[in-house]
């Protein structure tokens, strides 16, 4: 009634590996159910414990009620918008603000969508496709550095 699924992949000898079917099947596989689900559950429990502990150690923030007529409050973006706010700094002046704030992120998102069609090389490992890897690392480094610059600007702002 139910098809028993074999654990081992088909014996490799008879199969002729060609350019197309080399990525057909990994060398060694494990069943999803016991092992992989266990690893996933392990990581998930860690995350849940972290969230619960943090929600008591440093509770979700709730500052004083909103007041649109304040002149003493210093607005700060959430941490995941730090790099975006810092990147805006590189586009001063009337024409460049809308360019840097809207057009640059839209172009970035469109490029992100088109990644599979921009990098069509056969090989998947990052050492075999240096162009894509270098650009990927560049983007990661620029984002991290902008985040760091935002942090140093926020903690050092002469206002407070």
């Amino acid at each position: 009634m139910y098809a028993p699924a074999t654990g081992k992949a088909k014996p490799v000898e008879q199969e002729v590996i060609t350019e197309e079917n080399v990525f057909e099947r990994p060398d060694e596989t494990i069943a999803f159910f016991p092992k992989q689900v266990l690893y996933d559950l392990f990581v998930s429990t860690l995350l849940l414990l972290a969230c619960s502990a943090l929600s008591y150690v440093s509770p979700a923030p709730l500052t004083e009620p909103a007041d649109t007529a304040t002149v003493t409050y210093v607005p700060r973006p959430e941490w995941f918008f730090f790099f975006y706010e810092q990147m805006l700094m590189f586009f001063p002046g009337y024409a460049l603000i809308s360019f840097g704030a809207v057009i640059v992120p839209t172009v970035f998102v469109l490029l992100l969508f088109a990644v599979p069609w921009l990098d069509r090389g056969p090989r998947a490992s990052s050492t075999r496709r240096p162009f894509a890897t270098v650009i990927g690392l560049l983007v990661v480094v620029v984002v991290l550095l902008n985040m760091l610059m935002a942090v140093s600007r926020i903690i050092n702002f002469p206002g407070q």
Partner: protein
Amino acid sequence: MGAISRARSQAADAGKFVADWLEHRAGIITMMEHFLYEPVPKRGAWIYTLGSATLFLITLQFLTGILLLFYYVPTTDHAWNSIYYIMNEAYFGTLIRGIHYWSANFLLAMIGLHMAQVFFSGGYKAPRELNWVVGVVLLLLVVIIAFTGYALRWDQDGLWATVVGMKIGSYSPFVGAYTIQFLMGGDTIGPATISRFFAIHVWLLPAALAPFIGIHLYLLRRHGVFGDEMEYRERMAKLQERQRLEEYEQYEEDDGEPYVGRRDRADRD
């Protein structure tokens, strides 16, 4: 001794009967088997938990979000008080809202890691391009949900981050004014702003997010987990071995004498 063994066999038969009945009616057993016993790559199992951790965090957000709905009131003068109530009066209120807040932060970090892992391991190569596109759509939805969610608590942080965010939005060419009036529900911040953000954060975007997660998982299961090239080391080695042998025969046919060694690449013409 007879009673226990008889009870066990009766239970086994009953179990089998139920399983067969369900299988015939809904085919659920085969579906579960296909879901659970699918072979996945072994070597990098721990790295692939990034994706499932993201899934877990999103389900956590859905759960705690729905729980928060029981107490939250989306009007300008009660929003803050309702959250104050959750944090101080409701049993485990701090925990539920804490999880919602912290797992949101972890979710964005985890999505970053998951995307980086898939990008650097080349997981978007054919035939998995669509799954990458759906992933980017999920990323955008989560970022906008995070932005709208930040405003709902209607405290100083929330309000002013929204003011700055919308003012940035108003700089977009052509549609700048319309998007900001749509988000604010008029041309100034008021009660309509918070109810619109509430509607977007609680229903519009999660309702868009859920099916895309479904598609993401369906596409994953359709092509199987790619993992990393390290999962295909042996097959790659066999392929290169076979190609090299073919190359040698090619030399022998062209030159007529057995192959003696690789011709120097920088041979000057």
